[in-house]
């Protein structure tokens, strides 16, 4: 047992902090107002910078979580929530997919530039009107002499408007039964249509859109799979959940720091408002939730890394707790900031809008609870 971070775990976290000075933070604060082209430039710029720290390669090979990665992610998420999400979807989801399941050829063609921060990736999983877990996917590829003809549509694809490559989850027909696979589609491919950038409640510095494919032709070597079961598809969801858990930690840190700073400096009745129990106690609850969430998330990462049999269930616990605590902390922070909190462009207001995403994206809080409940039920005789 050891509750201290190892130097190796903390090292990357410090490197990331050092990358962001006041000027770059000011520029990142404008990310929410940028159009897709500017966001692409910003994200690529930071991907390139982060690549030099080794951040983009962390956790790719094993497809697992670990504490060093988690605290580095927490740091980046606290600096810029939107940049964090774009970077993670590109590196930790798209990149992992290619690293874990891709052919050597794909790794050479796609992974190398991805790790160097020269291209952006996206993964298209969800389909309109259905859960990926209970239904075969409608998006399908049919093999012919030229490779695969892929058709289908996907909803809410993060990074789609700025991505160089999109891994599209679907089924491959032709055998006895449809099997799942990922189709790697390059931007500007014929038959690929990127929908309009969606206007969202939060994470407004992230570009998200629907996509559709109409007889989009791919060479056979751009198909990852087909797989024997849904495992690799569900793995992607797990990776998403890990990222969203870290996003929650970063959000909590930012909102708590903003509220604490404000409470120390804003005075009322001749004293800082932190001196009032209404405020001080709120901050105490926020810090309690934050530290509890941190330990739970770190433990979930440690369990995943060590292959604990309960790792999947604890990861769901961490995701639900972090996502819901993030919303509570953001709400408290906004309340403490008062009128200032209600004005667009402060961390509490941004965090309050972003927090809802964490409960919806990846495995929703409701589905996570069902999975946790199932795991509990299966553990008793």
């Amino acid at each position, binding site marked *: *047992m*050891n*509750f*201290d*971070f*190892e130097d190796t*775990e903390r090292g990357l976290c410090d490197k990331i902090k050092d990358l962001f000075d006041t000027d770059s933070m000011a520029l990142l604060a404008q990310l929410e107002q940028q159009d897709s082209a500017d966001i692409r430039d910003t994200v690529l710029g930071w991907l390139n910078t982060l690549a030099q720290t080794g951040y983009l390669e962390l956790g790719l090979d094993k497809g697992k979580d670990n*504490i060093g990665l988690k605290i580095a992610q927490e740091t980046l998420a606290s600096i810029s929530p939107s940049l964090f999400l774009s970077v993670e979807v590109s590196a930790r989801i798209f990149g992992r997919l290619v690293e874990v399941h891709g052919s050597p050829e794909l790794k050479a063609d796609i992974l190398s530039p991805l790790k160097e921060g020269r291209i952006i990736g996206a993964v298209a999983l969800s389909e309109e009107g259905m859960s990926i877990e209970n239904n075969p996917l409608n998006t399908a590829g049919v093999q012919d002499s030229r490779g695969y003809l892929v058709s289908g549509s996907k909803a809410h694809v993060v990074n789609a408007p700025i991505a160089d490559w999109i891994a599209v989850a679907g089924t491959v027909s032709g055998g006895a039964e449809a099997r799942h696979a990922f189709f790697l589609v390059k931007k500007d491919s014929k038959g690929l249509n990127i929908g309009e950038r969606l206007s969202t409640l939060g994470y407004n510095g992230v570009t998200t859109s629907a996509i559709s494919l109409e007889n989009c032709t791919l060479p056979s070597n751009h198909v990852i799979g087909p797989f024997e079961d849904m495992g690799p598809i569900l793995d992607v969801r797990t990776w998403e959940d890990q990222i969203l858990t870290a996003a929650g930690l970063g959000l909590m840190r930012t909102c708590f720091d903003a509220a*604490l700073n404000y409470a120390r400096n804003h005075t009322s009745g001749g004293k800082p408002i*932190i001196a009032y*129990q209404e*405020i*001080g*106690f709120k*901050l*105490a*609850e926020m*810090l*309690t*939730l934050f*530290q*509890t*969430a941190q*330990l*739970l998330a*770190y*433990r979930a990462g*440690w*369990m995943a890394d*060590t292959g604990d049999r309960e790792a999947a*269930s*604890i990861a769901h*616990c*961490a995701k*639900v*707790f972090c996502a819901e605590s993030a919303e509570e902390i953001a709400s408290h922070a906004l309340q403490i900031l008062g009128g200032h909190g209600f004005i667009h462009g402060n961390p509490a207001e941004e965090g309050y809008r972003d927090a809802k995403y964490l409960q919806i994206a990846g495995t929703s809080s*409701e589905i*996570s*609870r*069902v999975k*946790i*409940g*199932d*795991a*509990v*039920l299966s*553990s*008793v005789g």
Partner: protein
Amino acid sequence: MDFSFTEEQVMFKEQVIRFAKKEIVPRVEEHDLKGEFDFQSFRKLGEFGILGLHFPEELGGSNADVVTTVLAGEALGEAGVDGGLTLAYGAHTFLCADTIFAHGTDAQREKYIPRLASGELIGCMGLTEPGAGSDVASMTTRAEKRGDRYVLNGTKMFITNGPIADVAVVYGKTGKDEKHAGISAFIVEKGTPGFSAGKNLIKMGVRTSHTSELILEDCEIPEENLIGLEGSGFLMAMQTVEWDRSALLAPFVGAMTYVLKKCAQYAKERYQFGRPISHFQAIKHKLAEIKIFMEAARPLVYRIAWCKDQGRPLNHLEAAIAKLFIGDWSLKPANEAVTLHGGYGYCHEYEVERCFRDSRLAPIGGGTSEIQKKIISKLM
């Protein structure tokens, strides 16, 4: 970071669970219903070695580290031991015996620790007063030095094990106008003239622990019963917080594991609309609430224990966070467990009813949640 336990710790925890299930749990319901302290189970805890686990072997202990000691507390809760007995154990071992061990003279240690570790003697701590809870400095109990004796006068309130204790660590003021610096700690034995316990208070939960006033009326004790130096009592009381936020909280966390298993078993056996209620999403959500709380709470407790094992001074912020979280956030899952059982959950024969009542102490005992928030907001 490493959240693992050693193989020995894991095996020990399993041993404690097996022992408790066999020797203690079958007696819980009867004693809880009657609101009676279970002397037999308490002695069994002593025989098994739990009461003195962290004391040196030469004083009747096992020289266990803090994490292992906390594991034992969690194991008792997980086995289904009621909060009353675990509270009695906590007050006895950590608030009374450990104060004598940590701050007493060799003679005091040798006189009391082996007999407290075995369960031959029962200990308690008298700190809280009717008018002084978390505001320790406002205590009014006085200890006046007269020759080679101290004369104690005052009343202590809500003293766990008060009516049954053989040995009490009692705090009183020796200084005249001093606050914290005037507080000293004394050993007062049962039967000392002027020392008596009030009647056992009837409580909502943790009913098998006996709680009462301690009354000191011109209670004369020899000067060698002073623990440590005059004026160092506040520090001693604060040092018990380390145990309070780890070993005393651990049974609450363990009890949630117990509750979770009971809920899952019930959900599988209870049929409604032709299928077990475990098939309903709303039931799974309740199980998840309990599980999430349990998993979130556990590292908070072990962080305090591990830091104590490293010899670090108590981090009061982290300690208050552990207490606040387990106190306030445990109420919802405890309530969910009762609701999941429906009408049966409201009846005593189902253990979740007792666990619900027991859990209500968590945000109150050992420093209320409001006090924890006060500490956190001051330290952040």
